[in-house]
């Protein structure tokens, strides 16, 4: 047996994970990826002087996850997987930066986040090997890390000829706070709080992934009611950010009515979330074992009333915006990522779905209440800013419908927070959720004493940043803000 199969949130014992040589693992991965599986996690774990390399592949149609491992010897190099399975590109870069093990023949082996615990401190942010372009009328534009607006820092370098961008290179790492390391050191005291702060715009998405992982390891099924409340909050988060982003996209094409109306509509959504959780971002709601706040009948009434208004306002504003010629002329055919490129790069979430990549954890690897109320996957094909914007519009409506469905049938089982058991020793669990940006993956590994010894986080931004860089090719540099907002990626989620 070369792989052990499992599912989202179903732990496996480390001893049951097949181990092979790195060459065999590579051949296995390449073969399985040709059959249509795709990578969701790839990371190393020190094993004495050597390293054990874990690979998790997803079979989305069968709702299965496949796990295997390779033993890295003292040679500390292997033949890169990326040339044959391009989705691996960022995973192998990250693996290389973390461990110092070289994937030979990787086309683009540059730093991902310049973590404080990276293998090679000779490589610094100052010495990042940017591509350069030579020729007549060629110039470079450098932006960041401090941007014009109130946003997170990152460095963008546009290689242009005239107004046209030939290539955009994005250098990240400024936001690195050492989350994965802190998770291992402090999970029993502040794991959930750290998870809520992995990306402050995806509080529920990451907190749910973390809590699901701990509950799965601890072999506890939380109450249906708690699952439903988490899902409602997750969809509130999705709707709120999508609405805010539509406003920002409107702003970037100078359609100020859209900016103002979507802005206040988002306020309504997050203030409604506050009425349940005390926080506009849902902080404090998700806790290991369940949720900390319960829906009273008043809450149900209020959620329905507010969301009815939100739904109406979004529709009125959305229909006006998406049929306005001056808006559409800026969105159509701007920043196009076609299906083939999106698949190769491994885009996830609404950015991927806008290019026809039919992936959604809620449907493919359902978790929590989504196991009983699956979400219908929607895709578009044009892959441009319009598709990424309209995809958001579709998803806002889907989320609100889902919330109404849940509010009408809130399970009334107990408890709100289930007590957890001690974590098992030498186990691994993969926990996936669909945040508003797409697929969130948390992998937790426990050691001999049942403590977490490795915690691997993948925010959807890790894969999608490259999609943004690609989308800019051949576009005018002035369309960058628009392309950027249509993706709206997380710097913290990448830098961890």
């Amino acid at each position, binding site marked *: 047996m070369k792989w052990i199969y499992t599912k989202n949130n179903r732990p496996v014992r480390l001893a049951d994970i097949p181990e092979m040589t790195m060459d065999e693992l590579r051949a296995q991965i390449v073969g399985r990826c040709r059959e249509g599986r795709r990578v969701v996690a790839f990371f190393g774990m020190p094993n004495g002087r050597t390293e054990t390399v874990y690979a998790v592949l997803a079979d989305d149609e069968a709702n299965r996850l496949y796990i295997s491992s390779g033993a890295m010897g003292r040679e500390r190099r292997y033949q890169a997987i990326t040339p044959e399975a391009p989705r691996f590109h960022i995973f192998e870069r990250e693996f290389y930066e973390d461990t110092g093990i070289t994937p030979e023949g990787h086309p683009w082996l540059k730093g991902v986040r*310049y*973590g*404080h*615990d990276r293998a090679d401190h000779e490589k610094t*942010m100052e010495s990042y090997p940017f591509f350069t372009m030579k020729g007549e009328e060629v110039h470079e534009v450098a932006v960041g*890390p*401090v941007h*014009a*607006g*109130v*946003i*997170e*820092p990152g460095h963008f370098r546009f290689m242009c000829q005239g107004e046209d961008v030939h290539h955009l290179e994005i250098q990240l*790492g*400024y*936001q*690195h*706070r*050492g*989350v994965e*390391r*802190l998770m291992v050191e*402090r999970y029993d*005291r*502040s794991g959930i*709080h*750290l998870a809520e*702060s*992995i*990306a*402050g*715009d995806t*509080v529920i998405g990451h907190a749910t992934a973390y809590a699901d992982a701990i509950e799965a390891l601890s072999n506890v099924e939380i109450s249906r009611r708690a699952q439903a409340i988490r899902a409602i909050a997750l969809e509130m988060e999705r709707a709120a950010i999508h609405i*805010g982003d539509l406003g920002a996209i409107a702003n970037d094409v100078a359609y100020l*009515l859209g900016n*103002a*109306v979507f*802005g*206040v509509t988002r*306020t309504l959504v997050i203030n409604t979330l*506050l*009425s*349940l*959780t*005390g*926080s*506009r*971002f849902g*902080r*404090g709601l998700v806790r290991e074992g369940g949720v*900390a*706040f319960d829906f009273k009948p008043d809450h149900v009434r209020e959620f329905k009333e507010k969301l009815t208004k939100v739904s109406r*306002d979004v529709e*009125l504003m959305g*229909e*006006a915006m998406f049929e306005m010629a001056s808006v559409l002329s800026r969105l159509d055919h701007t920043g196009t990522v076609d299906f083939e490129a999106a698949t190769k790069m491994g885009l996830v979430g609404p950015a991927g779905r806008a290019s026809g990549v039919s992936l959604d954890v809620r449907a493919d690897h359902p978790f929590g209440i989504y196991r009983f109320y699956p979400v219908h996957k929607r895709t578009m094909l044009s892959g441009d800013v319009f598709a990424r914007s309209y995809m958001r519009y579709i998803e806002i409506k889907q989320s609100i419908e889902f919330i109404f469905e849940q509010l009408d049938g809130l399970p009334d089982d107990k408890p709100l927070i289930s007590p957890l058991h001690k974590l098992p020793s030498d186990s691994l669990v993969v926990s996936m959720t669909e945040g508003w940006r797409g697929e969130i993956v948390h992998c937790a590994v426990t050691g001999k004493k049942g403590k977490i010894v490795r915690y691997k986080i993948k925010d959807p931004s890790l894969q999608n940043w490259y999609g943004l860089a690609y989308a800019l090719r051949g576009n005018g540099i002035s369309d960058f803000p628009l392309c950027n907002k249509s993706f709206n990626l*997380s*710097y*913290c989620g990448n*830098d961890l």
Partner: protein
Amino acid sequence: MINTLKIRKNQGEQAIPDVTRAEIRPPFRGLPAVDGSKCGRCDACREVCPVGAISARPLAIDLGKCVFCGDCARECPEKSITFSTFHKIASTSRDYLVVDGAKNAEEYLSGAIEARQEIKRLFGASFKLRQVSAAGCNGCEWELNACGNPNFDMGRFGIEFVASPRHADGILITGPISENMAPALEDAYMCTPDPKVVILAGSCAISGGVFQGSAALNREFLDKHHIDLYIPGCPVHPLTVVNGLLKFMGR
């Protein structure tokens, strides 16, 4: 055009007429009400606090560290810690952020911000800030952006975030200040013309928040420069920010 007018009419007036009187509804967690006399000394609050914000004798909470998760209030069997919805918690003094229940909300507010004549003279009518996110998780950043939206609309008071530090009267920092961002933060500060102020927004900026003590941080900036205003929250609420800034400007 007709559609546009319909939407405009449907929206009505959205701005909060008087932000200084606006209230936030429960269960929002603002200024904690601490009552040490009820405390049974079981230490449950200190055990669940993820950031070590609570000290025991006397019972007190440091708002500069607190992430307002509410876990302590839920765990306390004696209800000696509860969170009020009072949101005007910004202060010009770091020590002032440690609350032990001796002051009620009004008393807290009256001593929280020391109004300086020079600040009022220089920035009282127009206050432009360069925001620097130094590993901020995007929670505070979203809320700072919200300060300028049609609801809170701080632009009406002459407060604005500007694109260049050269146009700014000060720096407003979010995030625990990562090692990788520390040089750029220092650059942004140096590029801001004198006289200038430094404001910290959010638990991460004030104390490191849930990231305090991480080896990936470099908080030397805070030792080198004077901090003029602390705005607690996780993330900061727009009303805390706008009211804090207004009071600071002497308005």
